[in-house]
């Protein structure tokens, strides 16, 4: 028994939104449940989800490695503190 192509198409369209959980485009509970069920029975879409998660994890690691220089953050925090206390005026 093959997996319905319509579910694969919907899965591909919704996977990023499902993984991002962004308030601007959050899936409904029903959509999320349908997607989760589809991923449990369709190896191709499950593999696609794993690919996406793997790339996302790598991008998150890149973001963590390329953080701003703590000294620059400290200088800006000092600027902010002086503004807040009126010393910079």
């Amino acid at each position, binding site marked *: 028994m093959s*997996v319905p192509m319509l579910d694969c198409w919907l899965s591909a369209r919704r996977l990023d939104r499902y993984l991002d959980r962004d308030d601007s485009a959050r899936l409904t509970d029903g959509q999320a449940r349908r997607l989760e069920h589809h991923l449990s029975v369709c*190896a191709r879409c499950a593999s696609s989800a794993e690919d996406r998660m793997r*790339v996302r994890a790598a*991008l998150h690691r*890149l973001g963590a490695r*390329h*953080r*701003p220089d703590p000294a620059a953050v400290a200088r800006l925090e000092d600027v902010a503190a002086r503004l*807040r206390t009126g010393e910079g005026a």
Partner: protein
Amino acid sequence: MSVDQSTRHAVGPGPDPAAGDPDASTGRAELFGTYVEPEIEAMLRVAHRLTGSWNDAEDVVQDSLVRAYRAIDRFDGRHPRAWLFTIVRNTHLNSLRRTRPVPAEDEWLERRTPAFGADRAPSAEEVYADRHFDADVEAALAALDPRFRRVVLLVDLDHLTYAEAAEVLGVPVGTVMSRLSRARSRLREQLAHRRPGPDPTTDPKGKRR
């Protein structure tokens, strides 16, 4: 616009409408401490995405802090990060008008270096595999069209929401989503050679056994 740290301009909020009103000044200071100061690192990251340079980003954030301080009593308290990122974007645009229009690129992507100092993974094998995969991801990211790359940088590396990225880029949320989708799709295409082999627990039609 590289600036020596010792020559950064003096900081001051300029003429203050709340001057002489201690209650207004105190309220403004509290709002500034609540909404702005916790987001300094995020502002610096966003400014870096816009300017392509950490030095320029620091200048932009310094100016943005002054603007935010002056405007905070008019801020309605909703979506503080989006409000701040809009200030960062406008400050960046103003600085471009004062100087030459330099296309923003990411320094670290232009001179990609080996990925040292990566997050610790549980095993040496995973660290090894992640480093090789990460290098390929970085190369694929560098090969993206800048319009698409910037959305990935803001959302996936800097963890902005779609709406915040839309504010930074000055485009609708739908545009952020479509660019993000295309960018991620291209990244996956570029990384297809790194995909693990077929899963032996599935049949040829993709149905799980």
